[in-house]
């Protein structure tokens, strides 16, 4: 069965420091991978997505993610974190087959930013 693992429940980084959020997926076919951000009291917003091609994907708000098939990973990175990046981040994979596809989310990583 398809699944997504986000090993870190929460991470704290200093403002201006670099960030990497980990995501591992389990899916037998070509994965369709996504990162979403959820700020308090708001719905999820898509940061970036990967289908094929260049394994380094650029997203909004200065985020990027790298797909590594050999490691079944799709880690999210940002070179310099801003206080406004404090939120919960969800990695997702679209699982299923031609009979139907659905988005499967990880449990999320909460990011805290300290001044």
């Amino acid at each position, binding site marked *: 069965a398809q699944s997504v693992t986000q090993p870190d429940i929460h991470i704290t980084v200093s403002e201006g420091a670099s960030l990497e959020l980990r995501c591992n997926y389990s899916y037998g076919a070509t994965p369709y991978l996504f990162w979403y951000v959820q700020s308090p009291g708001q*719905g999820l917003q898509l940061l970036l997505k990967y289908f094929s091609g260049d394994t380094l994907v650029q997203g909004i708000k200065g985020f990027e993610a790298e797909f590594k098939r050999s490691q079944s990973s799709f880690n999210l990175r940002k070179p310099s974190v801003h206080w406004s990046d404090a939120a919960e981040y969800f990695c997702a994979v679209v699982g299923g087959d031609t009979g139907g596809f659905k988005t499967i989310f990880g449990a999320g990583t909460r990011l805290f930013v300290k001044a």
Partner: protein
Amino acid sequence: EAGVAQSPRYKIIEKRQSVAFWCNPISGHATLYWYQQILGQGPKLLIQFQNNGVVDDSQLPKDRFSAERLKGVDSTLKIQPAKLEDSAVYLCASSFRGQVRTDTQYFGPGTRLTVL
């Protein structure tokens, strides 16, 4: 462009009571999703509509949950009767075409349900 609207934002009920949530997707979006997000977990798909037809309701607890999307626009999700384990945030999302693998899903702010 207006986003996905949901109401109410918060609801507190006693177990065994009924509750309904409403969602109005982005205008022109054919596909509407309802997700359940339990505290500490990622969202889980409950039901997907394409226009006013159900595409996937395999994870919807049909003995107590029901959903409809009349006229292919707004949608209502109902729980009857509610259980303690239904306490969660219920998220509505919409997308333009319903190509789950490639379309961007736009999420509403959610309805936080507390069952006492």
